[in-house]
Structures are given as C-alpha cells and as structure tokens.
C-alpha cells in the first residue's frame, strides 16, 4: 500500500469543478467543506476584528449601533452555523472516518453530497439578507419577541438556519450508520479510534436535537408571517417558551461542537507521545455521557429569565454533573503523556493548548453553573470570554491541530514545522490577550452586545483589541505556511507521524477506493508496539 499501487483520489474521477461539486467521494466532500468553511471563517474573523476595533476605546464609534448589532449577529451566525457546528465532523469526519474504519466511503455517499449542497444553500440564503431587507440584528439566538418585531430580514436568516440544520442532521445520520455498519473486519467497538467515538456521540446529538431547533425556527416564521401568537406576548405568546425551545437544541449543540474536537485530541496526544492512550474506555464512555447529560442542562442559559427558582436549582446541579466526564477526559489525556516519548510537533502544541484553554473555559463554566455567581455574570463579557475559550480555544484550536495533523494525509505534502510553530505561538498568545481581559471586564459588570461602554471598562477592552491583532497575525502565518506547502511542500510519506490508526496505512493522499485491499484489524487503534512503530 504505497504510492505506486494506485493513483490518488485527486487523479481519478471527473476533471474540473464538476468533478468536485458533484462528487460523492467522502474525501472530495471533506475538502469541499474545508474550502467553504475556511472562507466563512475568514469572513467571521474580519467581522470580529471590526467589532474589536469598534470597542477599542469607549465613546469613539467607527460604526453606528445598528451596524454593530448586525456585525455581531453575523459574526455569531457565521462562526456557529458555518464554522464551529459543521467544524471537525464535516471536514475531518468526512475525510477521515471511512479511512479510520477501513471503509471505502460513508454509508450514504449521495446523502453526504446533499448535506454539502444544503450547507451551501443555507449559507447562500444567509448572505442574501445583505441584499434583501437588511442584515439581521437579533444576535445568533434570535430571542423573541425582539426577533419577531425586528424590521430587519430575520425571516430569511431564520430560514437559512433551518436549512443548515438539515445539513447537520444528515451528516450525523450518515456517520452513525457508517460506524455501525462499515467498520473493517475485526474492528470491534473498542478497537475503533476515539475520533470515531467522538463522531458517534456527536451524530446522535445531531439526529435527536437538531430537529427541535428546526421546529422552533419554523415557529418564528409562522409567527412573523401569520401573526399566530407563540412567543410574542402582545398576541398571546410566551417569550420564555422560545428560550426553552431554542436552548433545548442549542445547548446540546455546544457538545456537537466540542465532542469531535475532543476526539481529535484523543488521536493527536497518543501519536505524539508514542504510546497507547490512557483509559481508552473512559474516554469513549465519557463522550457518550457528555452527549446524554448534555441534553438536560439547557436551562443554565436562562438563570435570569424568570424560570421558577426550583428549575434554576435543578439545572444548576445538572450543569455541574456535565463537568465530570469532561474532567475525566482531561485527566486521561494528561496521563497519556506520562512515561511517553514525546515529540513536540505542531499538532501536539495545538492539542496541549487545547487542554489548557479548554480547561479555562471549563473552569469558568463552573463559575457560571453556580447560581449566585451566574446571576451577576450572565450576559456580561465574562460569558463572551467563557464561550470563546471553549469554542475557539477548544474547538478552534482542535480544528487547527487536526488540520496540521491530517494535512499530509489529505494533501500528500508536508508543511514547514518552524513557521507552523511560530503561527501557533502568535495565535496562542493573541488568543489569551484577546479573551482573558473580557473575563475581567465581565466581572466588573460590562454587559455584552454593547457597541459602546462606560470608561471604567477601557483598559481590558484596549488590551483585548490589541490581542485580536496578534491572533490574526498568527492565523496569517499558519495560512501562508499551509498554502505554500500545498505547492512546494515535500511529498508526504504514508505515515509521517508513525501513528497507529488505519488512515495512515494507505498512501498520502489515499487512492479513490481508500485501500487497495480492505484492511483486517487485529490490534487496537493505539497499539504502537504491536504495529512495530515503537520498541516495546
């Protein structure tokens, strides 16, 4: 199974753009997602930069309030629906899952292509709001009754989110069936790589939770178009009902965002420690535990919204419980470093900074899970900092770690190590300068979604804006390094990191059918000794 046995998937299939946008090959679909998502990510970053520029000094506006409101709404919608939710599953799940399972493709290749088309259609509809009726200004949460009264084109944006939901459901369904049905001969459930476990847990959340938000968004449309009182109290609705329905999906959705990221970390840490993962089963089960308990904690977004005091206490307690499986994962990753033979390359730097940043996100989550402290911090920039630590410090760093880990496999080229490390360093420093001050401003009482703020919050906001420049400098270094590698990088061997999972047993990039001969699995996914990758 080396390069000479077959052409790579790039060299087979229909030529030209049609060979890509109508391809049912999971690898091509993965790359389609990668290209479209990185485009959206770039737009989201630019919006974020503009927001930080606006907030650099108090009292000096570069954009008026209504523009700022659309900026942060678009930033949120793009980053959440078009980058973080599809995130790792759509790119690395699509590309790697069949390879890791030793399969030829996902279970339903055509549905897979449909998912991407739905994704692009939803994204296109969201962008249409620029030209028709004005950008939405409600925040990505579309809270009623504001979203019902807003004169902006909320209907189109909501419908776009509805379409995107279907893309997500179909991807989840596809992965769950693939994992059940298409594992290689000999690959029992506990011989599956942990990234596949992460995708499995994610798939179930996508299937079970996403329809709820689909229904909720449709109800907003029904209310806006037919004036049926569902959420607007002036016509007999209840705005708090909307919040419940919204968070019943959107809280599990944060686990859709993080579980595949945790899966990627579980691949990177053992590979670069040159030893088997510590507590395989605990990591696998904790993914499932997070997926299950994650359904029951949505109310912690609503501690000040007027729920009964009992409901608030119950949701607070359940929220603390979801911290446990997360802590278990962190401890197991750390224990995997113990007595290893650690090679500190770029993917591991991203993985370790993931553990650090995600821990800060998790710990500050405890502060918000506790009732009395959350009452103070709710809807302040403390929350903004918290979810950027989990979503960007967590999923974002895992995404870039995964990109650097699987880049040789996907493109058949090696990137340069030194610029990648420099890019990581700038990104890591910039990230902390950007978001940590927001914890302080939030504790001081600066509410979020403010286009201007009181002078007493000036210092943390200035530091934060400067941090955003450092972060973007890091992103540029990383991007230039990877784009350069696409053309000029050294040819990648089949297994540059000496990893033990199946995707590294085929050539880089893989042939169209993935494996020349269907693999038969006899060892565990991290059995470096059994595969002769390290001395035992």
């Amino acid at each position: 199974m080396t390069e000479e046995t077959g052409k790579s998937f790039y060299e087979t299939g229909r030529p030209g753009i049609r060979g890509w946008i109508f391809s049912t090959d999971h690898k091509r679909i993965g790359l389609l997602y990668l290209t479209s998502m990185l485009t959206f990510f770039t737009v989201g970053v630019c919006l974020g930069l503009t927001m930080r520029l606006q907030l650099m000094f108090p009292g000096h506006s570069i954009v008026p309030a209504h523009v700022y409101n659309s900026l942060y709404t678009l930033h949120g919608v793009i980053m959440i629906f078009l980058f973080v939710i599809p995130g790792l599953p759509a790119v690395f799940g699509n590309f790697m899952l069949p390879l890791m399972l030793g399969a030829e493709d996902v279970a339903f290749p055509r549905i897979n292509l449909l998912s991407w088309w739905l994704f692009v259609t939803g994204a296109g509809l969201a962008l249409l709001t620029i030209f028709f009726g004005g950008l939405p200004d409600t925040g990505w949460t579309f809270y009623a009754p504001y979203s019902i009264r807003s004169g902006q084109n909320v209907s189109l944006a909501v419908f776009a989110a509805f379409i995107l939901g279907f893309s997500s459901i179909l991807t989840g369904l596809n992965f769950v069936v693939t994992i059940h049905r298409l594992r290689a001969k000999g690959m029992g459930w506990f011989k599956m790589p942990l990234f596949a476990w992460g995708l499995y847990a994610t798939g179930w959340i996508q299937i079970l939770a996403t329809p709820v938000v689909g229904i909720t968004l449709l109800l907003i449309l029904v209310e806006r178009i037919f004036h049926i009182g569902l959420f607007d109290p002036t016509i007999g609705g209840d705005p708090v009902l909307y919040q419940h329905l919204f968070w019943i999906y959107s809280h599990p959705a944060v686990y859709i965002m993080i579980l595949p990221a945790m899966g990627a970390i579980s691949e990177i840490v053992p590979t670069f420690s040159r030893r088997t993962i510590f507590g395989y089963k605990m990591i696998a089960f904790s993914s499932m535990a997070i997926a299950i308990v994650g359904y029951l904690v949505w109310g912690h977004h609503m501690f000040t919204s007027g729920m009964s005091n009992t409901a608030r206490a119950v949701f607070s307690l359940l929220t603390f419980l979801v911290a446990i499986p997360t802590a278990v994962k962190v401890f197991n990753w750390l224990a995997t470093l113990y007595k290893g033979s650690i090679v500190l390359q770029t993917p591991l730097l991203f993985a370790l900074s993931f553990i650090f940043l995600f821990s800060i996100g998790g710990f500050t989550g405890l502060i918000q899970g506790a009732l009395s402290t959350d009452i103070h911090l709710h809807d302040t920039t403390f929350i903004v900092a918290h979810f950027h630590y989990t979503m960007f410090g967590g999923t974002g760093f895992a995404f870039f770690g995964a990109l650097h880990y699987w880049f040789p496999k996907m493109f058949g080229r090696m990137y340069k190590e030194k610029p990648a490390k420099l890019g990581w360093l700038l990104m890591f420093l910039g990230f902390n300068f950007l978001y940590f001050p927001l914890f302080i401003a939030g504790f001081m009482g600066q509410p979020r979604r403010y286009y201007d703020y009181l002078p007493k919050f000036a210092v943390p906001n200035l530091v934060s804006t400067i941090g955003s420049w450092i972060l973007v400098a890091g992103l540029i270094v990383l991007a230039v390094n990877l784009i350069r590698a696409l053309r000029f990088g050294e040819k990648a061997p089949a297994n540059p990191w000496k990893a033990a999972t199946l995707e590294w047993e085929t050539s880089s990039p893989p042939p169209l059918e993935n494996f020349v001969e269907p693999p038969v699995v006899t060892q565990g996914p991290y059995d470096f000794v059994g595969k002769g990758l390290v001395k035992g």
Partner: protein
Amino acid sequence: MAAAGHPRNPAAWLKALGVVILLAVAGVLVEMVVGVNRYSDFGAQVDHTFWMIVLIAALLLGGIVVFMVYCLVVYRHDRVEVPVQVEGNWWLEFWWTVIPVVIVLGMFWAGYEGFRNMRTVPKNAMKVKVLARMWSWEFEYENGVHSNVLKVPVGTPVRLTLTSADVIHSFYIPHFRVKEDCVPGREGYMWFKADEVDTYTVMCAEYCGDGHAKMMTNVVSLPREAFEEWLRSAAEEKKAMEEPVAEELSPEEKERKMAAAGEKLYNVKGCAACHSVDGSPRLGPSFKGIYGKKVRVMTGGKAREVLVDDAYLTKSMKTPTADVVEGFQPVMPPQNLTDAEIEKINTFIKSLK
C-alpha cells in the same frame, strides 16, 4: 487491584474534604486581598463563591500545567527512547471521577446558598415597580410617584417587580451582583439592600436593539430622611401636575405649565434616551427647534417633506415608523401615552426654540 486500595478509602474521603475546606479558607484570603464587596447585602456572598471557585480552578489548572510541562521535559523523545505502554488504571479513574464530583457539589451548594438569599425577599421590603422599555427605565413607587432614577433609602430592603413594555430587557446592578430579566407579559422580581449612601449604575443586560448600550440609569441610595423628603415632594409635584391647568391663567402661563409637565414626561417616559434637547442627534432627531420646521421623512420607502406640527408629533408617538426623519433608523416602538400626555409633550417640544 480493587482490594488493595480499599482500606485507604475513608482516609481519602477525609483528605478530599480537607482540601475543599482548605480551599474555601484560601478563597476568603484571596478576597481579603482583592477587597470585599460591601455595596449590598449579598455582594460579599457572591464574590466569596466566585473567588472560591476561581481559587480551586487556579490550583487545578496550575496542577495541569505543571504536570504537562513536567512530562514534556522528562519524557521528551530525545531522553526517552522506549515509552512505557500504560493502558489505564481503574483506581485512578475512580478517584479522578469521585473527587471532582465532591468538589463540584460543593460549588453547587455555595452557589445555591447565595441564590436562595437573592430570591428570599425580606417581609419589610419597600416595593417598587420597574417598567423597562426601549430604551429607558421607569420606576413606580407605592404612592404612585414615577421616576427614571431609582432612589432608595440606604439599609432598607427594596423589592422590585419587573416587567417590560416591549421586548425582553434585563435589570442589572453590577455593584450589587444582581440581575433579572424584564419579560413582557410577565412579572419577575428581585430584591437588594444598598448598604452605603452612593450612586450605582443600572444597565440593561439583555440585548434589546439599537439603544441597548445606552439603556442605563442609576440607583441612588439616600439617607432615610432625605429619601422620605424626596418621595413626599415628588408626590406633591405629581399631584400639582395632574391638576387641570386652571382656566383663568393667561395663555403664556398655561403654556409654560404644560411645557413643564411635558418636560417631566419627556424624562420619565424615556424620550430622553433617544431625543436630545440640545440639538445633538442621538438615535432619533433632537427636539431642539424642530417644531414648526419642515423635515424630510421616509414614508413607506419614499422621501417627502412634512411640517412638524402637533399632528405630526402625535402621529410620531402613536405610529413612529410611519414617517421616519431621513438619516434615522425606523426603530422607535409605539408609545403608550394618553392624549393629555401627548399634548403636554407636544407643548414641551414647541417650547424648545
């Protein structure tokens, strides 16, 4: 393996408990350095919980980082050629599941305790109704006095009943560590006790549109007597305001009284949030000198010119988005005002030459 660890079980429990207690004590110490919140009744309690969790988190995070760096140094590839393949350890898994459970239950309890105090209103609390609207606050006292600043007597518990006239807002006093949403069609509640004579910022914490960031007012805590005095005079002023303007007054005098009443309404009803009286544009056009002028407005997407008179002003309060002055966003919500109130406000606007 299970049997070997069993005798240590109770000791480890005690140890874990000891650690938690130690951390709680350390939390208090941190707080002494950072400073205790003395502004309100539960400020100190909230901060105490906050710093306790921060401290436990900092210690755990420190542990994580130290262990990570230790491994990176000691087990780096050029030092260790042959790694040890450790598959796991069920006792470790057990302990690092159980100890975090104990820790987070402690945190839950601390948060719940503070919360219970926040939600248990003392029986003798003074009652004030809060009406939030885009983008101002209106406070109504039990004797019917309306104000756009929340004046309270120091050291007295105050119970707020919260609701909204339009979309969801959130009443937030950062110094007092309290917040609760104002939901249209519902009544929420919260309470606080200001412990020092001072002025504290109130902010809206739930996004509510273009004026969200400017939807602020103050809690002003006054000595008991000063508060009583203010409440009494405000009640008298209100009474005088409500009396019909005496017929026998000269037209100028009548107009002056109406304008004064209009100015009061301009402040209380929240007009001031978006319309200045000094010529500077805010979210809406300034009222200064606008009466009797011709302005360009957008009517259903088409520009036209209208004269600002009583009829136009009245229409602009009842259906604000019908004719929007050019250069401004159609964001003003319809105002729930009586005809008498509108007349007074119109007279006030007219007086701003």
